[in-house]
């Protein structure tokens, strides 16, 4: 079974090739079958693979399968080879599983689009590249997947290419992430220079053997890798591209900008966790970046009017949780949250897509409302997703994953009370912006008529994901609940180390859980009171001048776009524009001018009069004679 590992990314890639070459000649039906089918078979294969893998555990925690040698130059031997362990398997399961559901959903969502087969071609390419990213055995191949998903993200954000704004968003996404990618590339150069390999497991071994804890090299490498990670995962300071990336079709947002690609940063750090563990400084920076991002994005999420932008900021914020967890060494918690987040965020995006689809493309929250009766299924699944995102205690999966993070941030030896407080505040914010969105969308009067109801191919993925968003959390139930269940962390600990908890804090687990439950419920209660119970109070609050200013500030994402525009974008364009004619060319033209001027000067002597020439001859001859005679 493990032999067939290569088929899993190969199938979607083959789907891409067929769709790209077939182009418009393929019927919609055929395109849908190829696009969805290839990912579906991959998902089934992954399932079969998972069974085989679990059977081999704990004796064989990892498998390596080389397909061919990519290149082999001067000691740099890079194979197209795949590495399968618990972490990779989790990622693969999410990518193919959620990916399949989103593909299925897209058949309905994109049914009337001109670029139907182009859409599925790009989506298949994305799934293939993402699978390569998570299955790569070496950093070079990982980088291939990494850039590949970036390119697909670009292609899909700008999918509706007619609108220049979409093109701008797409290019922004690509360029901003590429800044991070370049940092990551430099990390690769440094790693190869110092450790002589790019094969991940070898690197980890050699790094552990050659580099001391807290020395400068692992810190530099870790920070450069972090640069790549924050770019891809839209964390501070490179978070600005993700909200704009919502210009793409909604299934794209669900698949790429919620469930899979944006978590690549988390994956990279988890994959190279040994290097990060060598550098306490880098770990703290990861945690701080995560905490700062989750708060920042949380506040921004409060003020958005576009339903997809709320979700985008919530994605940024939830990935902030993952980074926070990584930073405190809570590897299993971060992975668990990644998985649960993929379920509920894909669900929320798809449900939002169903709403947008139903309202003929309306994305403004303030033009929605009253959809509870019109779209009962969407209402229910959206509620499930929102509850899971807000981590409503006990009944949602989001509670178990987020609680695990908050608790471990508090109790880990790398954690701290301040980070914990940030995480808790983030939980409160999450709950507030989530239910604000939910109430705006489904409660109140109907503001826009419903045009389409979702068909079966849209409803089925919604239902499946809703169930997953609620029950997947039972894979991991905390100790304080009568011993609990630790299926997931046992599984993932075959690849990632367990969290180092401070013994002194371990007894406080139940208190910590109560606090996070209170944050989630408190946020829900607050929104309910301000929006449904006494709307006047809510309205009064939003009319405060301070609130209005803050809201405008947060709506624009804390002014980061403005700042980067001022610091990088505009100077670059300015420099390029003023130098369009190429100043160096001007220098050479100057040389040519100089030649012409000399020519004019010499030409002036050529009067065309014989007598002038004769005079010149005479004077010259006289001068020569004088020189000969007297000198």
């Amino acid at each position: 079974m493990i032999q067939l590992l290569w088929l899993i990314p190969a199938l979607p890639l083959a789907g891409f090739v067929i769709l790209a070459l077939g182009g418009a000649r393929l019927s919609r039906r055929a395109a849908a079958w190829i696009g969805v089918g290839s990912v579906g078979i991959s998902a089934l294969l992954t399932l079969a693979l998972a069974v085989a893998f679990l059977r081999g555990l704990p004796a064989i925690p990892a498998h390596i399968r080389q397909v061919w040698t990519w290149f082999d130059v001067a000691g740099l031997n890079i194979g197209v080879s795949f590495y399968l362990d618990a972490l990779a398997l989790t990622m693969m399961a999410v990518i193919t599983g959620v990916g399949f559901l989103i593909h299925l959903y897209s058949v309905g969502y994109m049914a009337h689009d001109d670029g139907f087969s182009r859409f599925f071609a790009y989506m298949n390419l994305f799934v293939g590249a993402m699978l390569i990213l998570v299955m790569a055995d070496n950093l070079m191949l990982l980088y291939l997947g990494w850039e590949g998903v970036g390119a697909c993200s670009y292609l899909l954000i700008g999918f509706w290419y007619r609108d220049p704004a979409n093109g701008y968003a797409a290019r922004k996404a690509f360029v901003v992430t590429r800044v991070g990618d370049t940092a990551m590339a430099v990390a690769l150069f440094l790693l190869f220079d110092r450790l002589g390999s790019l094969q991940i497991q070898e690197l980890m071994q050699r790094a552990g053997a050659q580099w001391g804890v807290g020395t400068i090299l692992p810190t530099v490498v870790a920070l450069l890798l972090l640069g790549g990670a924050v770019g891809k995962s839209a964390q501070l300071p490179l978070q600005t591209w993700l909200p704009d990336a919502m210009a793409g079709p909604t299934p794209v947002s669900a698949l790429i900008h919620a469930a899979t690609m944006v978590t690549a940063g988390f994956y990279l750090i988890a994959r190279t966790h040994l290097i990060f563990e060598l550098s306490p400084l880098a770990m703290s920076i990861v945690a701080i970046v995560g905490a700062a991002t989750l708060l920042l994005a949380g506040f921004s999420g409060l003020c958005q009017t576009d339903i997809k932008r709320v979700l985008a900021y919530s994605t940024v914020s939830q990935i902030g949780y993952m980074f926070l967890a990584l930073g405190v060494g809570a590897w299993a918690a971060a992975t668990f949250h990644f998985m649960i987040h993929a379920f509920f965020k894909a669900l929320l995006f798809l449900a939002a897509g169903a709403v947008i689809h139903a309202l003929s493309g309306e994305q403004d929250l303030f033009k929605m409302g009253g959809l509870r009766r019109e779209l009962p299924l969407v209402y229910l699944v959206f509620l499930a997703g929102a509850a899971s995102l807000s981590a409503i205690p006990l009944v949602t999966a989001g509670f178990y994953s987020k609680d695990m993070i908050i608790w471990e941030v508090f109790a880990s030896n790398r954690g701290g009370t301040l980070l914990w407080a940030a995480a808790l505040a983030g939980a409160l914010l999450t709950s507030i912006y989530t239910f604000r969105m939910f109430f705006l969308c489904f409660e109140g009067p109907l503001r826009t008529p419903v045009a389409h109801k979702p068909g079966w191919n849209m409803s089925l993925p919604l239902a499946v994901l809703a169930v997953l968003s609620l029950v997947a959390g039972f894979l991991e139930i905390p100790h304080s609940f009568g011993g609990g269940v630790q299926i997931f962390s046992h599984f993932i600990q075959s690849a990632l180390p367990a969290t180092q908890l401070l013994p002194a804090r371990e007894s406080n687990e139940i208190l910590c859980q109560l606090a996070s439950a209170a944050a989630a419920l408190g946020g829900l209660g607050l929104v309910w009171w301000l929006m449904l119970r006494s709307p006047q109070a809510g309205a009064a609050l939003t009319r405060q001048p301070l609130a209005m200013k803050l809201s405008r500030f947060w709506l624009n994402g804390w002014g980061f776009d403005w700042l980067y525009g001022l610091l990088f974008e505009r100077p670059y364009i300015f420099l390029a524009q003023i130098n369009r004619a190429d100043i160096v060319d001007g220098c050479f033209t100057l040389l040519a001018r100089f030649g012409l001027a000399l020519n004019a000067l010499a030409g002036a002597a050529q009067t065309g009069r014989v007598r002038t020439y004769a005079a010149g001859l005479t004077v010259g001859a006289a001068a020569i004679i004088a020189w000969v005679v007297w000198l």
Partner: protein
Amino acid sequence: MMLIILIAVPLAGGILAGILGRRNAGAARWISLAALLLDLILALVWLLPVATRPLAPTAGPWLVELRLPWISTLGISFHLAADGLSVVLILLTLLLGLAAVACSWSEIHERTGFFFFNLMWVLAGILGVFTALDLFLFYFFWELMMVPMFFLIILWGHENRVYAAIKFFLFTQIAGLLMLAAIIGLYFIHGQISGNYSFDYSALLGTPLAAGTGMFLMLGFFAAFAVKLPAFPVHVWLPDAHTEAPTAGSVVLAGLLLKTGAYGLLRFVVPLFPEAARAFAPWAMALAVAGIIYGAVLAFSQTDLKRLVAYTSVSHMGFVMLAVFAWNEMALQGALIQIICHGLSTGALFVIVGMLQERMHTRDLRRMGGLWKEVPRLGGFAMFFALASLGLPGLGNFVGEFLILIGVFPQAPLLTVVAAGGLVAASIYSLWIVQQAFHGQARETWRISDLNGREAVTLGVLAAALLWLGLYPQPVIQMARPALAHMRQIQVPHSFPAPESTASLPAAPADPQGEMHAIR
């Protein structure tokens, strides 16, 4: 003998095309196509098996060699030879030559025969440059490829062609003369030291030179190759020449002529003047990095699509120069891959611009936009090559750039980081092309046709080659490995004055292996 035939076939094809093309334009096209195809097949049949065969470790560097006496009194011989590096470049030349013929199929209507004559002679000159081992002969081919190129630009170019052609000619000619001076200087110095006056590459290798003299001579060679490459401050002829040349001219310029500069740096500058090159390396690398960034920034601001693509060449070839002066195996292999892939991707972009110009009669980006709807297949190819040009992994350019950077990093970490910044700039201009030409709203109403079969095949072959090099470049790496290893061995530091260092050099003409190949 096969090397002579390889060069003679395009020469003869060119003459035939020129003569028959006076009556019948179609004949000129078909003859050129047939000649190049024949040449490509010959190269594949003759050179590829030799180049891929595992080499005996004691063998000399040359896979095929041919030496005929020419002007013996001056020590000039007709010396052609090819190693793995040359073979790869010969194949690239013929492939892009075919693309050039294909893309001028319907573009050239006037004096078709003479056009193909010039095109074929440029290609023959380039083949000669890639194989000549006698410096005099090398210079001969160097000039041979330039003159027809001048005619291609000045006769079949666009609006501002006379200016561009003369600029091109002046820059390359002046730099070429500097090289000629350096060649003659080296000839006399070597002759005085050894008593053997010879223009032969293998004889001249390892000539002991005083530091100052070596630097002067090296700079003479460097000037010629830096202008051709083009390196940063002397790149200014390139945007004009590229922009004004007919499509085939741009393809050959970008895809091949620039590569002769890179080849010259690899084959001559560093091996002939190892110490001077080492002393000069920091400056050259700084220039290279400046070119990478400068070209990328300028490319972004252009409004003429062809000019934009031209500036990307400055950026991409900067990587090659960076690699050559780092002179380690990783970087050199990267440089070779980059040379090939830049030829393919930029050549393809020029072909695309040519197709657009043929249909729209403009290259102005400000007038394009929204073309995807009209020409989705052309748009798809443009997207593909733009992504290749920005260095997307999985396509060849990435392998080249990555190997170069990873190879240069240990020697110049800071410069590498700056050069890596060029990757960001590359993504800005590449995506800008796609956005301005194919995405967005149509600014004017265009009714243009999508790719026909000939065009699709041309672009398809180039795309497939890039994909192959991106996913499995190992055959090329394998082929070039012995050649690069030999070149790197030459650079064994020798003390000055080195008495018998010339005798022990690998490229001895008496090498039985080489003779054997020459006979076969």
